[in-house]
């Protein structure tokens, strides 16, 4: 096959590209330029968008011996990922921009362009496994549970999966690093990237305050307990996440002296509700905008993962107008806007965006 290898400049995508070559594919490396102004994105080895990263990717392509180009997708990225991220926060939700990037950029804009240019597939360094099953290509968790990235791929459709390659899914990360060193890829020792690539200093709340400006849903309000009594003040709900405990600076101590957590954020009134941890327990989720990896299910029992590095929760799923997920193991700190990725064993069934949650009766 003719394969586009998306190379971030990191170790994973470099080894993935090398493996695609070894598997006999005709591979061309590309690096995505996602920032109009590279300096405004994460610097050093942490992000995926700096000049240094582009150079690292180029050197890796040299070593592997494949052609290499930089594709400028900064406009699409800004419109589809950065602005969406801001819009979601402005509406009081908590989106995951990495899923959005996979859905709209890596496996959409890049894939479309690759197919248009005569390529057959896009290879990335994600830790996930593709298998051919009865109903087509199945997406599974990687063998390295600690590195598994099937969650952020849970937005891919069958058509996207059929044109994807994840050459690292069968290998634990330490072996990938060792393999990079053996292949002479200098990126072998580069630290993993974390956090959001377009927030340069990792301060999401500060970034949102600056970028949203007068689009902020509010610039302050009351922190109340479940009885409605005011227990503190804040300078804008944009700094808060459901389940957050630290940094609340509550003026009034809890009657029982136990720690309190953010239970609810009401962006329009700017009200933040706090309470004990057990009241965070979510037992049901309503999801919207489902994306199925294969045929849409009507009902299933399986598991659901609710954040990128979160655990699995056993669940019952019913698909109708919305995706109703009944959690058999409660989940804590779940916010609208996050993605719920549904699994059947190791297989990703699909995903939905969390619209609302139901709490255990208090």
């Amino acid at each position, binding site marked *: 096959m003719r394969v586009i290898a998306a190379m971030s400049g990191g170790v994973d995508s470099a080894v993935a590209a090398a493996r695609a070559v070894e598997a006999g594919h005709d591979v061309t490396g590309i690096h995505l*330029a996602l920032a109009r102004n*590279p300096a405004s994105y994460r610097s050093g080895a942490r992000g995926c968008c700096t*000049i240094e990263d582009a150079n690292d990717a180029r050197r890796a392509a040299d070593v592997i011996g494949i052609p290499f*180009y930089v594709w*400028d997708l900064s406009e699409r990225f800004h419109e589809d990922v950065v602005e969406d991220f801001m819009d979601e926060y402005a509406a009081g939700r908590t989106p995951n921009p990495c899923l959005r990037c996979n859905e709209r950029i890596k496996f959409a804009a890049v894939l*479309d*362009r690759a197919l248009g240019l005569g390529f057959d597939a896009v290879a990335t360094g994600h830790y996930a496994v593709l298998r051919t099953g009865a109903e087509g290509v199945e997406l599974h968790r990687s063998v390295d549970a600690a590195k598994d990235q099937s969650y952020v791929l849970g937005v891919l459709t069958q058509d996207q999966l059929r044109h994807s390659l994840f050459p690292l899914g069968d290998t634990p990360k330490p072996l990938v690093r060792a393999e990079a060193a053996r292949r002479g890829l200098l990126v072998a020792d580069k630290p993993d990237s974390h956090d959001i690539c377009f927030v340069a200093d990792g301060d999401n709340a500060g970034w949102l305050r600056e970028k949203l400006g007068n689009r902020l849903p509010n610039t302050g309000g009351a922190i109340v307990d479940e009885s409605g009594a005011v227990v503190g003040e804040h300078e804008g709900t944009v700094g808060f996440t459901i389940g957050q405990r630290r940094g609340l600076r509550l003026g009034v101590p809890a009657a029982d002296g136990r720690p309190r957590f953010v239970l609810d954020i009401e962006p329009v009134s700017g009200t933040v509700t706090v309470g004990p941890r057990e009241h965070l327990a979510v037992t049901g989720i309503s999801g919207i905008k489902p994306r199925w990896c294969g045929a849409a299910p009507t009902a299933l029992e399986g598991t659901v993962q609710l954040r990128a590095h979160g655990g699995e929760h056993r669940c019952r799923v019913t698909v109708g107008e919305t995706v109703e997920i009944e959690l058999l193991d409660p989940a804590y700190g779940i916010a609208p806007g996050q993605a719920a990725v549904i699994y059947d064993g190791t297989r990703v069934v699909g995903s939905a965006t969390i619209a609302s949650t139901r709490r255990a009766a208090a």
Partner: protein
Amino acid sequence: MSRPEQRTVYLDHAATTPMVPAAVAAMTAQLGEVGNASSLHASGRRARRVVEESRETIASVLGCRPGEVVFTSGGTEADNLALKGVYWSRRAADPGRVRVLSTGVEHHAVLDPLHWLATTEGAGVELLPVDRDGRLVVDALRAALERDPSSVALISVMWANNEVGTLQPIAEVVELAGEYGVPVHTDAVQAVGAVPVDFAAAGVDALTLTGHKVGGPYGVGALLVRRELGVTALLHGGGQERDIRSGTIDVPAIAGFAAAVELAVKEQATYAARVGALRDRLIRGVLAAVPDAELTGSPDQRLPGNAHFSFPGCEGDSLLMLLDARGIECSTGSACSAGVPQPSHVLLAMGRSEAEARGSLRFSLGHTSTEADVDALIEAIGPCVERARAARA
């Protein structure tokens, strides 16, 4: 998987062109020799002689005096030396001279030093408009000069544009500048060997040229600069090159550079006729294969080796990649050293939209170009454009 062996069709001579055998011979003859050209002993004198003969060669073919040739590490350094060195010198003589007049289509080796002068030295940099072909609007220069001639430190206008190949009206610039006694610098790295360039006859005060664009080595170039024009040094040290450019003289590179310049200038007319005909064949062929492609730049005031097109509905990046996969090498002309391709400032200055700028490619011919190269492009361009259009994200 290795791609099948295919012939490389090199259509990027404006980026760099292969060294000519005479330059390789002249350079390699010096590589095994010893002698610092500043040393007083026999080896030093031998090295010095090579340098001075090279200087005389360049001076004689380019119409300047040997003492007006200042060797540098290349075009970028020569441009920096001309702009900063002349600006500082002229301002030192009269603190009111703080304006620099240039154009919006200059190479980054001119634009970036100007930007630096503006932001750190308080220079008033005015980038004058160009017409749709990329030629300086001379009336704008006249107006800028007339507004306050005594405040102008320097005018810098390139001889020929590196992206679209447009020749600038240097004679008119020199004439206007002469009326007000303002010195003129010109970046002629693309012009030497391609069109007639004579320093004295042109009447410019400083001229940039570089080795690797004329069949010489990388890493060497020169600023031709009139003795009467003060130039403040950028590099301080041993006082070489009239104390304008310190640093141990690179004898082998200079020998190769001089051989290349001599050959290029002597063969300029033959080269222009041969390569110009190839260029016309290329333009006809591409326009026939892609009827809605548009030739960018001037139809007649143009470098003989330059063909630049905008392909509507295409990403230049995609097209470049598809051609590269067929062994055909060209350029988008955009500054992508920063990793992120930016639409060409030259095309934007010429009034093109960002979309047009992104859909553009430059094909540049040189001394090794053949009809077969041109025909390979003509054969490939139609299908590649079709493909690139289909792939537009």
